[in-house]
């Protein structure tokens, strides 16, 4: 399992986490290179469909990054995201897929370190969990 290199997809908010990730880069904070980032305008625009599609195509983990409560540029997109992700995780648990593969985190534009720590933590957890079992199923 030690040579397992998890693939993570990040759906991140333009106003906070995307800038946070940028800051992590420009401040040269070290974190594992396992994440590919997709920028959206708000965590509230993450349709669970995107997360599901990623998992069904074999992503080992998915990060959704949004503004801290109270800070969403569209007032409440992050609160809506929180409900959607809670539902998604409940569904994943019920079909036997570890819900820890999906992480919703509030990361502001100034939290480069928090972004790097989140990715490091996810990679650690995913190494424990092993590859996404859906990758091996062709009948999906």
């Amino acid at each position, binding site marked *: 399992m030690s040579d397992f290199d998890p693939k993570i997809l990040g759906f991140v908010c333009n106003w906070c986490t995307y800038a946070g990730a940028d800051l992590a880069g420009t401040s040269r904070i070290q974190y594992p290179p396992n994440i590919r980032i997709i920028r959206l305008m708000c965590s509230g625009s993450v349709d669970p469909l995107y997360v599901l599609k990623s998992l069904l195509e074999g992503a080992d983990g998915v990060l959704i990054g949004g503004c801290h409560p109270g800070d969403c540029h569209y007032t409440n997109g992050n*609160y809506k995201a929180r409900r959607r992700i809670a539902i*998604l995780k409940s569904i994943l648990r019920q079909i036997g897929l570890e819900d820890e593969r999906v992480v919703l985190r509030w990361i502001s534009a100034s939290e480069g370190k928090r972004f790097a720590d989140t990715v490091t933590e996810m990679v650690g957890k995913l190494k424990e969990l092993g590859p996404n079992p859906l990758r091996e199923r062709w009948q999906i």
Partner: protein
Amino acid sequence: MNPAEAGPQVERRNATAACVEFVQALLERKVVEAVLVPQHVPGAKVVVQTLVTDPSRLEDVDPVAPVLMSNSATMVSSLSFQAPKGRIAAVMRPCEINALVELVKFKQANLDDVIVIGIDCPGTYEPKDYMQIITAHGGPISEQVFESLSRGETPSFDGYELREACRICEHPSPANCQILMALWGADFSSGPVIVPVDEKGREAVDKAGFQSGNLPAHRQQILEKITSERSARGQKILEQFAQRIGSIEGLVDEFAACKKCMNCRAECPICYCRECIFCSPTFVHESNKYLKWARQRKIIKMPVETLLFHLTRLNHMVTSCVGCGQCSSACPNGLPVMELFRTIGSTVQRIFDYVPGRSLEEEPPFTTFREDELEPR
């Protein structure tokens, strides 16, 4: 010729007579302009919803017939979302009304000019089973059905089972209607009891020139018995199903025969989107994509994205699934779609203490949020 072959002759006796007289009076006395009510199609052994404006065109009305070709909440939505000029009355089963309540909250229906007449429901047969039963029986079976209900029993016809959705349904009697047509426990010789539930209902019953009936004394007891039997069965069935889909392998196997025809979605009263994302260009992939996927995985199932379809639909609407079972009835491959949605739905709905169809006031989980909830995640 066997009477069933000649087409059903609805014998207007106890079961249907009171219903017909009542909707007829609503039309004759212009309480409403039209009624939406199930009728036999002469010669076809099926029961469909009809929208009737002429009181003389109610010959084959049979709302007691234990069959539900489609959930009429969708029709009431079509009839009311643009606030029509003219009142309608709709005779509906409990699961249809529950779905309608959800559609109202999603702003897909407007009940200002609708009078919902809720009818007690014994459960329904698959349409093909219903056809066989009435063929064997030589005509409609509503009298037998009503007789069972008046005794407080689920009707039974040798060799046939009600649809599973109905066998585990916890709503034998409708809520959120203006007028109730009570069958459970009603005196067989005097017919269904018509009871107004709210002011709007009372006004309509008065204008129609009807007396409000009295609910049978032992009705509550009957409903409790039926509900507890069915919910016990539901618990067992859904627990077993949760086991079956509790692993990726299990879920994948259960739905291996899905061909993504999307009939389940088409029949779902809650799936109201006019342009489902699965019918949109998002899912028209470049030809090369398929080869790419096949190269990556070595082998892929065609059509692609069948599981994605179900998991997405679950995420989008399971919070409002009313368990009507139209999805399972619509599936050409007999897949347990209702079981999937009810199993997952019961857990997800519990997170928000939400019961679809329970009340017009409770906000559906996706239309609202609280600032302090669901933490820590």
